[in-house]
């Protein structure tokens, strides 16, 4: 009876439009936020922050961006990695050209650069669909990474071709660079992710979200219902690339600390796509679940042989890891093609009617 919704009536549309119409959902959220803001920081060690918590958040954000494009607006993109790169390089240039600039401002500004690039590469979506569209995004992927490599201005002509995050302070606390502590960076990322997620939820449940979903489900019909396909698709590319760009900036500035062009290669795109799909296309929460699975699980798996005392070499662990992730992906797709979010929804539904079946 934990999840009983009966008795929770809505008497106005206003109430129906609350973020969490069902009380239990709100409690659950409070619980998760408590976990994220209080419990983890008190218990986790630095390795946990750097290897799991912060990356999970950043990857969730990237997947959220992708999900808006692919899950909500139905436009498949294989170029997420490169768009993250645009955000990262933009942020790097902003920070180095204007050393005075507040890092928060720089990060949120850098999103606009990737958004612009995203829109440019989204233009073909007006004519090209499905897998064929993936090619446009792949073109972006490879072209941009090439550009990151060849355009020395982007990395300030550094000899190695890599960008290195300087130490940056925010209100007197170092948040980026080698001197930043993992905990500060975690809180920083957590706050950004919370804000963006909140905005994204609102966006996806309102008019614009509906328009995106219409385009996804049937673009011809959407057009005949009066939706301007061009605008709809391009806003999706814009918003999506914006979020992806921010996540890219966070990726480098609040986590990696440095980056070379290859970091943004297609593997990264795939990783983010995995997260979005395993989490559930067309779901905001799914991104977080997906990221936990794809980012945190491998880290955990790699500890297993050690814990069990199995005499397995590092390479073998890696091989097995790759293999297991492959199997997990297939397994999850088979069990629930619509992702973990749907899985949770089903559990929730069962909880709602529990303990009375059917």
């Amino acid at each position: 009876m934990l999840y009983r919704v009966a008795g929770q009536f809505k008497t106005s549309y206003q109430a129906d439009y609350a973020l969490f119409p069902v009380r239990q959902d709100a409690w659950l959220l409070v619980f998760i936020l408590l976990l994220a803001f209080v419990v983890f920081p008190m218990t986790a060690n630095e390795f946990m922050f750097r290897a799991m918590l912060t990356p999970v958040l950043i990857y969730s954000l990237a997947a959220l961006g992708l999900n808006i494009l692919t899950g909500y607006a139905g436009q498949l993109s294989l170029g997420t990695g490169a768009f993250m790169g645009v955000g990262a390089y933009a942020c790097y240039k902003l920070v180095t050209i204007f050393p005075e600039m507040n890092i928060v401002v720089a990060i949120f500004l850098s999103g606009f650069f990737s958004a612009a690039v995203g829109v440019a590469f989204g233009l073909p979506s007006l004519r090209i669909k499905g897998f064929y569209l993936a090619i446009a995004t792949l073109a972006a992927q490879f072209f941009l990474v090439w550009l990151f490599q060849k355009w020395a201005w982007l990395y300030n002509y550094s000899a190695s071709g890599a960008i290195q995050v300087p130490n940056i302070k925010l209100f007197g606390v170092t948040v980026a660079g080698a001197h930043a502590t993992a905990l500060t960076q975690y809180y920083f990322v957590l706050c950004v992710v919370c804000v963006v997620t909140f905005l994204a939820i609102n966006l996806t449940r309102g008019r614009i979200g509906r328009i995106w979903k219409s385009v996804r489900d049937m673009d011809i019909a959407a057009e005949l219902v009066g939706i301007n396909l061009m605008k709809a698709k391009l806003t999706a590319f814009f918003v999506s690339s914006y979020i992806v760009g921010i996540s890219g900036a966070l990726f480098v500035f609040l986590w990696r600390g440095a980056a070379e062009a290859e970091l943004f290669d297609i593997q990264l795109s795939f990783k983010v796509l995995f997260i979005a799909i395993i989490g559930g296309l067309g779901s905001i929460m799914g991104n977080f679940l997906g990221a936990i699975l794809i980012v945190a699980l491998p880290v955990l798996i790699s500890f297993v042989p050690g814990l069990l005392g199995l005499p397995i070499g590092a390479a073998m662990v890696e091989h097995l890891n790759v293999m297991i992730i492959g199997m997990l992906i297939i397994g999850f797709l088979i069990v629930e093609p619509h992702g973990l979010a749907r899985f949770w929804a089903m559990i929730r539904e069962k909880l709602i009617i529990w303990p009375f079946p059917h």
Partner: protein
Amino acid sequence: MEFIHPILIKPFADMVSAPDFLVQVLWEGIVSGVLYALIALGFVLIFKSSRILNFAQGIMVVFAALTLVGLYERGVPAWLALPLTLGVMLVLAIGIERVVLRPLVNQPDIILFMATIGITMFLIGLGETIFGGENKRMITEELGIPTGNFIFEPFGGFVSIEQKDLTAVIGAVVLVVVLLLFLNKSKMGRAIRALGDDHQAALSVGISLSTIWVLVWFIAGIIALATGIVWGARAGVSFALEVIALKALPVLMLGGLESVSGAIIGGLMIGILEKVFEIYWGQPLLGGSTESWFAYVLALLVLLARPQGLFGEKIIERV
């Protein structure tokens, strides 16, 4: 007007002034084009019969080549290793059908695409576990593939054509002709095409999904082996091969996802153009390595004009 010269005039002047070099460039383009085309062929077959964009085609190439070489290294003679490898590919096809495709029948395209990436990861892990990660030599001579060079010396320069490349080109042509005949003239071929249009309807008329899928994946496996031998002969067999699978994607898009001849022509086009562009424009003007994106940008431009690719099936849009 100064920028016109290096872009519009100099490259062509270079081509004319060193014709032997141009011929070599074109030949290199053709050879890599054939390889792209071969991989793309595997994609096309599977796409035609199941609307799956099989990302695993690239790793299948590696896997097939590794199995062949691995068997040989473990003492199996070449003539036996070849059929045994085919056997392994058949088992792989059956396995994939049972474990992955069957439970995922009727799921959206993107889910299946993801599943094939899952297969890719699994095969990478498996392959490395069994065969190790290092680069291996392809057993070219043992398979009876000639390895010498033909050297021509036209226009006072020289053009060097490797015999194994030539073999590859000829082999690819044969493979394609056989495939085309199979698809268009045989009952199975028709069933494959039918399946691509509508799974449910195909099931309802008694077309057996499992049989066809196993068949198709097996053929893709054969193509993968052929590709693996050819490519391995050039650059050795290692997991780095897998990245060429990515090159097959623009080839596919350019040629059209379901067109066999499109794969061939698209492959050759991309192979040749990207090489020519890289040598005459990319390296002098753009700092090189343009091959990494040229194919995609070219495909993109073509798609803008023809959204279904050069030879793809027209997208039927009706309401």
